[in-house]
């Protein structure tokens, strides 16, 4: 039970009539980077959204099974707004709000508490520093977040998530729209952040998964286009001596 951040038991998910996830069992550990890999459409994003209940926003989603977060059932025992504050999310496409950089970062904290100006300044600065954006933009905190470059926007989104002081950061292909330099900055950041946060990342990029993650989960899709988990293990094991033949095929296919 120690160190188990998430405990997923027999989780299945349907979009209306279509089953998208089948009977997933998985444990996710704290202060590690966990990578989800697998062919597209196999339900990685869907599963990621289960973890902070973002699927609730989608009409017609039905979920069976249980997810415990720090030992608590996220579907029954926690307040959904607090859950999302504890489990932040960074999306595939950078999505800053059309407001100033400062307000973008302050958005999350302001939802939960009224802060004094100085306190808020500290929170914003800390978050921007953690996202290694502070030095670039400290003189223009009032400019619109949309005015930043793509890579900066994504780091702003990360800062925005960090500002609510979450335990977990979920990232859905956060670098897929970025150039290699911006990508490597974000990868460095993730390794830095691992000390204080647990990170779950969906990625298409095999090298990225092997470079940064500690644990890798490989998902696949069956004949009825329903996603399932093939195996979870140490990243080194998954990439260099996978237990399952399907994992080996997928990884070698990607490398080859």
């Amino acid at each position: 039970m120690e160190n188990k951040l998430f405990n997923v038991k027999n989780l299945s998910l349907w979009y209306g009539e279509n089953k998208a996830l089948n009977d997933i069992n998985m444990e996710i550990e704290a202060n590690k980077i966990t990578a989800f890999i697998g062919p597209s459409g196999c339900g990685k994003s869907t599963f990621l959204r289960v973890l902070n209940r973002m699927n609730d926003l989608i009409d017609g989603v039905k979920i069976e099974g249980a997810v415990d977060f720090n030992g608590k059932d996220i579907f029954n025992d926690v307040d959904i707004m607090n859950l999302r504050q504890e489990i932040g999310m960074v999306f595939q496409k950078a999505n800053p709000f059309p407001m100033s950089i400062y307000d973008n970062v302050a958005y999350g904290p302001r939802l939960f508490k009224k802060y004094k100006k100085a306190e808020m300044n500290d929170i914003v600065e800390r978050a921007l520093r953690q996202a290694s954006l502070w030095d670039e933009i400290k003189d223009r905190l009032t400019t619109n977040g949309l005015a930043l470059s793509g890579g900066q926007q994504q780091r702003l989104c990360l800062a925005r998530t960090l500002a609510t002081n979450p335990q977990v950061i979920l990232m859905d292909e956060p670098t897929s729209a970025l150039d290699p330099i911006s990508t490597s900055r974000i990868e460095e950041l993730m390794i830095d952040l691992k000390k204080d946060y647990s990170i779950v990342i969906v990625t298409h990029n095999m090298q990225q998964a092997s470079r940064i993650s500690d644990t890798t989960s490989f998902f696949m899709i069956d004949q009825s286009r329903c996603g399932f988990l093939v195996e979870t293990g140490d990243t080194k094991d998954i990439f260099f001596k996978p237990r399952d033949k399907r994992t080996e095929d997928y990884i070698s296919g990607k490398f080859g």
Partner: protein
Amino acid sequence: MDRKRSNQIALISIRIFSAVSIAILIVILGYLLFRGLRYSNRKEIKVIPIASINNEFNVYANKSAKLDYLDWFTLQSMAMGRVRTLRTISKVNEKFHLYIDPRVSDQFYSYLATDKLDKFIIKDSTAINYKEDKGGMIVLPITESAPSGYRSIKIYDNVVVVNKEVTQLLNNKKIGAVTLTQIEELKNNKIDNWNSLNGPSLKPDFIANASESELANNPGSISIVKAKEYSMMKNVETLDVVNIESGWNISLDYLLSNSEESGSFGGIFSIIVNTLIMIFLVILISTPIGLGAAVYLSQYAKKGRITTIIRSGIDLLAGVPSIIFGLFGMLVFVQLFGWSFSLISGSLTLSLMILPTIIRTSEESINSVDKNMISASRGLGATKIETIFKIVLPAAKNGIVTGIILAVGRALGETAALVFTIGSSTDIASKLTSSSRVLAQHIYLTIIEGQSIDHAFSAALVLIILELIINTTAKKLMNKGKKNGK
């Protein structure tokens, strides 16, 4: 070869059509601008519109009386005390006052060939505060200069007199008014026959300074005499003269003074104010309702039969002719609620009329807000309603405001929906339930009630300028929205 030919033809036709439509637009706008700014009326008057020189006295009128000239006959009626207000002779609805300097009273009344009226003759010219008297007119010796606030007015006193046969009705034809050019031609015997002016078949014979008997005995004779002389002739007829009066239609004064007598007199200020109050009310009523409905439909309503029916109902309402909203407003607000013809009845009717447009445009811009932004907000722990107020509505703001502005622009130009609902009082509305007139309505009413085409045109110009302001604001916001919206 053929292809080249047909391309050429297509290009030429496109050019021609665009040139034609641009030309039409320029003509329409130019005409509206011209008619709105200047008036130019053709009037038929009894005297020749050329000022005559008087070397005994000058007549001055208060500048606000808006008088440029007077004909001898009107001046005579004034001096005889028959004219009490300026309304028939100028566009001003003022009580008329005449002050005659005692030094020229004899000359003045003799010029007008009438008996002196003592009540107009002042004892001491300095004792009267002319400035205050908007309807004031002063007769002073030629040696005196114009009092401040007054201007000299021209007196027309030459009359075209003709032998009675010239003005006879023959075969349903009768000579009409003559122009100054025609008078010149008649003077120089350049017109051979009266029938070229719709008169009888007689040769015109111009006699300078003719006496009554000369004119009476000579068929076809014509002369120009002083009005005073004419007033003593019996057996002659006069010819009316065409006078083109022109001037500024819109002035600051016109914009800033209140309308009087259903818009026949005075300015347009009260009507502009009413229009602005009405627009304010319409925005106040329709925005929260429309926005609320749009938020509900786009964010909360379950996709299903009922929502579809509501949506098509809204689309249907958006296409309903405004007169039908007018009828509805009359039955419900005017009669059922008993608010009579009033500002509130009219504003509510217009609000209902533009509501479908506001709902649809707002819903569209709400739907076009980046879904990723909404997810981000929810992902940070914001509730749905927090997200709507903090993210969705601010992001959709420009689109929503643009929609509202365009809808309000439509309300601004609306008459049909107001005919049965808002009333027609030209006073500034003091209560929600006061009858009040707005610009578009004013144009309609001044024409329908036959008051003044000039006033209709100047109101039209003001309305167009208001619409222009509204449209440019909307366009600016739209461009801004495009920049922010990506």
